[in-house]
């Protein structure tokens, strides 16, 4: 198919699913070997980059994020920038100042967040790979809700240069695809040391070692609060893993219940400082009244263009860093993160991965999401947050479907820098589990 034909089809499909905020207008396919898309918080020199926020409308970055330039160097053509929760602030890609992506299995339901558009594109288009970004579960959650594979590598494995920061100590760029083999292939493409991001420069070499996954630990804390259908699908998957020769053992991980508050303290603290740069100068919206005093000018833009959840997280993060509260919240959360890491290390000494369902329920309907409180929404992340807080590599694989045909996923968590066992189990699981593809609406 010609590039004109591809773009025409993309536009038509996007009008149904809203997976892309921006699409390429370049009709020259050149010698591109594959097509890919990227979450819209990764800068791209040839397309507007908004990170789901009205405050960045009109922002045309002068450079590509390292992960995007590496995909291009590997022969990829960037076709679209994917819709997401504003700056990554959400579980359903519903907190967007722009377009909200629709679930490929039911257009009235969410794709999950915050890399919802990326997971949607991976599910809808054949042979398509999309770059996502995870801070607290933003790759695995949408991968689970959209029935595809998604990996968030170890913190520091992929350069964050060109990523519009949410939480610097938490953000990880990863890969989402309907094909399990793509996780290994494209994680290798985007990984590596990059002097532009010092946190990427301490990583050990990333080689195919052929290491296999032989055992998993299921934390009892990770199988609480599940919907009946998620619980059933997960138990059946454990039996399948046993039949594939893996040892499955239930364990206790008492620190997991503290991961959620620690994560939200750190994430909002970091976000509130990162978002201080958006004041109506340099990026995106800049049409303010220059006769205003700077305080009023900055406040005008931030009040006018930040969405509801962005304001909430800025307020929360500003509060937890304030004098008198910092030790109780921020300093304590840093210590709790180390406790969670130690708990993972303890379990991973004798197991290759920690395993639990990715999300406690399947993709909710938009009208149900609109009735959820902020805290309810935060709590929905309790299964994905701990691995993100710990910076450990984690991956969601499809493992079942509920009575409405909505996908269910399970999440493997490996030790730092040990993505290899995740690639191994993803490829073996893909041969064992018959994943469906959505019927694409046109």
């Amino acid at each position, binding site marked *: 198919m010609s590039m004109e034909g591809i773009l025409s089809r993309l536009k038509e499909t996007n009008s149904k699913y809203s997976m892309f905020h921006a699409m390429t207008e370049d009709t020259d396919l050149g010698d591109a070997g594959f097509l890919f898309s990227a979450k819209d918080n990764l800068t791209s020199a040839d397309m507007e980059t908004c990170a789901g926020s009205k405050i960045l409308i*009109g922002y045309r970055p*002068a*450079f590509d994020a390292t992960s995007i330039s590496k995909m291009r160097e590997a022969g990829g053509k960037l076709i679209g920038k994917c819709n997401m929760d504003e700056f990554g602030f959400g579980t359903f890609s519903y907190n967007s100042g722009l377009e909200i992506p629709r679930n490929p299995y039911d257009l009235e339901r969410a794709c999950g967040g915050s890399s919802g558009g990326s997971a949607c594109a991976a599910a809808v288009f054949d042979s398509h790979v999309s770059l996502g970004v995870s801070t607290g579960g933003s790759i695995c959650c949408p991968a689970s809700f959209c029935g595809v594979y998604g990996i968030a590598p*170890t913190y*520091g494995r992929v350069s964050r240069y060109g990523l519009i920061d949410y939480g610097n*100590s938490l953000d990880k760029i990863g890969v989402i695809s309907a094909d399990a083999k793509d996780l290994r292939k494209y994680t290798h493409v985007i990984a590596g040391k990059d*002097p532009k991001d*010092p*946190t990427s420069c*301490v990583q050990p070499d990333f080689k195919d070692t052929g290491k296999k996954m032989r055992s998993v630990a299921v934390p009892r804390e990770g199988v609480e609060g599940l919907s009946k259908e998620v619980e059933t699908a997960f138990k059946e998957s454990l039996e399948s893993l046993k039949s594939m020769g893996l040892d499955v053992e239930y364990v206790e991980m008492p*620190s997991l*219940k*503290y991961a959620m*508050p*620690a994560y*939200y*303290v750190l994430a909002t603290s970091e976000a509130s400082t990162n978002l*201080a740069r958006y004041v109506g*100068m*340099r990026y995106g919206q*800049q*049409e303010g*009244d*220059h*006769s*205003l*005093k*700077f*305080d009023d*000018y*900055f*406040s*005008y833009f*931030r*009040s006018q263009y*930040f969405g509801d959840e962005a*304001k*909430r997280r*800025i*307020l*929360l993060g*500003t*509060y*937890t860093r*304030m004098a008198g509260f910092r030790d*109780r*919240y921020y300093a304590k959360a840093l*210590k*709790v*993160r*180390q*406790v969670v890491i130690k708990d993972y290390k303890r379990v991973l000494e004798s197991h290759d991965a920690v395993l639990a369902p990715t999300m406690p329920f399947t993709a909710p309907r938009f009208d149900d999401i609109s009735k959820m*409180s*902020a*805290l309810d929404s*935060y709590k929905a992340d309790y299964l994905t947050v701990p691995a993100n*807080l*710990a*910076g450990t590599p984690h991956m969601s694989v499809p493992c079942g479907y509920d009575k409405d045909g909505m996908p269910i996923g399970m999440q493997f968590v490996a030790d*730092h820098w040990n993505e290899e066992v995740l690639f191994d189990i993803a490829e073996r699981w893909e041969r064992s589990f018959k994943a469906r593809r959505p019927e694409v609406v046109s």
Partner: protein
Amino acid sequence: MDRATVERVARAAHIKLTEDELERYSNDLNDILTYFELLDEAPECEESGVNPVEVADVLRDDEPRMCIDPDVLLKDMDTYERYIRGPRLS
């Protein structure tokens, strides 16, 4: 968190809130901070690194170079004679 505190925090964050937002965020943040009280009973350890994995200072060679052409950076900014336009400072 009472309304006065929310107002103080919002001022520090350069966000002006409507009456409706003040009421709503005050309620939401109270719920969330109550949930955060779980941290008070959480175990802790001596280490408290800022990053989840060990990182080291990495320095590049201190050589002058053009990172990005300033003209490219300026093209989407509101400028006046190659200066970025902004509000008055006082």
